[in-house]
């Protein structure tokens, strides 16, 4: 599969900054995949996305879009990409439909606004001023805005942040449908639920550097414990025993436990993306 983006030794320093915020990162985003770009706040995720969508230009290293140098591509680039921002990006004194019609009028390849707004449940609110939309409605409108030009590549920043589970699922299904139709997605997020459900490949960005680039499955295998924990009843007590996953079928203690005790639970040592995020980024969980 061709690379949608090939990024090599990318570095960036803001004009007013003293140090690089992006420090020589390299990665590829394959065409047709959902690439999760993860990391804690201030890690450089948004800056990397701003470089990839040409909002920032004076970078070092190279960004290639379908083998073409991004710096050499003109404004026609925006005919091919859709960007879903985390923050609302609409004129508050215009209605949802007026906003969409305005932005849509600039594209050659126009998506059906009605269909998109219907899918995210906003069509019935099309004539309401955006300033009167709830936060969740604005997030959904951001997603419609990103899809207005039937993009080839979607950039999504915390796309389900602020949505209830039902609407979050609708958006995730639309992203998945977009991928199935051949689209490429660059997803910037810290919501591990989205990552588990959507991403084919993820990269962890911390302090402007990349630490892991792998599939969620590879990461789970790498960071998970290869063990099984069994909770069982014995003498009116609930006890716990941990067994190595290796050769578990031949482990006599395990076999005996299964046969002679009433079991409460059995858990494999598979880890979650949330745990991996914390391990990789070194973040501290405050409960």
């Amino acid at each position, binding site marked *: 599969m061709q690379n949608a983006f090939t990024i090599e030794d990318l570095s960036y320093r803001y004009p*007013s900054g003293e140090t690089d915020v992006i420090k020589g990162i390299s990665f590829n985003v394959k065409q047709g995949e959902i690439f999760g770009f993860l990391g804690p706040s201030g890690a450089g995720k948004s800056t990397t996305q701003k470089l990839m969508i040409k*909002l*920032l*230009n*004076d970078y070092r290293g190279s960004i290639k879009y379908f083998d073409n140098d991004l710096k050499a591509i003109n404004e026609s680039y925006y005919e091919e990409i859709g*960007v879903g921002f985390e923050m609302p*990006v609409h004129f508050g004194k215009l209605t949802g439909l007026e906003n969409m019609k305005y*932005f849509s009028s*600039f594209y050659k390849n126009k998506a059906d606004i009605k269909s998109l707004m219907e899918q995210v449940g906003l069509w019935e609110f099309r004539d309401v001023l955006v300033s009167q939309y709830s936060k969740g409605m604005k997030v959904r409108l951001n997603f419609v805005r990103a899809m207005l030009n039937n993009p080839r590549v979607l950039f999504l920043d915390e796309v389900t942040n602020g949505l209830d589970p039902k609407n979050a699922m609708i958006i995730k299904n639309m992203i998945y449908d977009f991928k199935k139709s051949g689209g490429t997605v660059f997803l910037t997020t810290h919501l591990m639920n989205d990552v588990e459900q959507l991403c084919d490949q993820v990269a962890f960005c911390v302090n402007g550097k990349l630490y892991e680039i792998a599939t969620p499955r590879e990461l789970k295998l790498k960071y998970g414990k290869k063990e099984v924990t069994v909770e069982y009843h014995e003498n009116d007590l609930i006890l716990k025993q941990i067994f190595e996953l290796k050769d578990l079928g031949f482990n006599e203690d395990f076999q005996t436990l299964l046969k002679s005790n009433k079991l409460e639970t059995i858990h494999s040592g598979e880890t979650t993306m949330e745990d991996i995020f914390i391990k990789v980024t070194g973040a501290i969980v405050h409960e």
Partner: protein
Amino acid sequence: MNNIVKLLKGEIQRSIKYLILPVSLLTSVIWVVIFLLISTDEAKTISPLFIFADVAVMSIILVGASYYLERQEGTINSVLMLPIRLSELLAAKFISSMSLAFESVIIIALSLYLIHGITFNYFLLLFYVIVSAMAHTALGFSLALYAKDFNSLLGLLMTFMLVFTLPTIFYTLALIPESFEVFLFLSPSHCANLLMNYAIQSKSIDWKVMLSVGYQLAIAWGLLKYVIYPKFKSNTVRG
């Protein structure tokens, strides 16, 4: 060109929805009421100041404020994701800013004629308005791009008004002696005010007009080339 027309239509639509155009019209109506209450000579003296206020002062304030409103609403990010050139976006913003000045100038010129029978070279006034509005729109943009937040923009605008606009008004009211005028040519506000006076009082073109036009064109060109165009994207997205 097609993109500029679409952008311009959007700017004008929003100037109505955000009540910028209606407020501007209301201001012009106030000028008309004043013209009804004063003599022809007084109208000829004071009308350049009204046009100056709309063309020079309001251009700076409106451009700066609307840029910050767009940043606050995040719409500028969405606009920057459109398949348009930055030059088209800036051209639309400049024309939109000038269109508000035109609206005011048309109302003032019409009421001067209808109420007092005052006529002058309308094309010359139009040219002077374009030059002055361009320079002051460029100044407004530059101040907005360098302001850290809206409060700092207000501070910069106040400083500009104190340093450049207030002396111009004092000079018009004869509170500053004529011998100091040479220093006032450093002020784009003074240049704009002088051009409006020359157009309405039908004075012939002299070195002061040449200097005022040249200086303001240089300001507009210099700021566009060295400040607004190169800094627009990066300053807009700096967060």
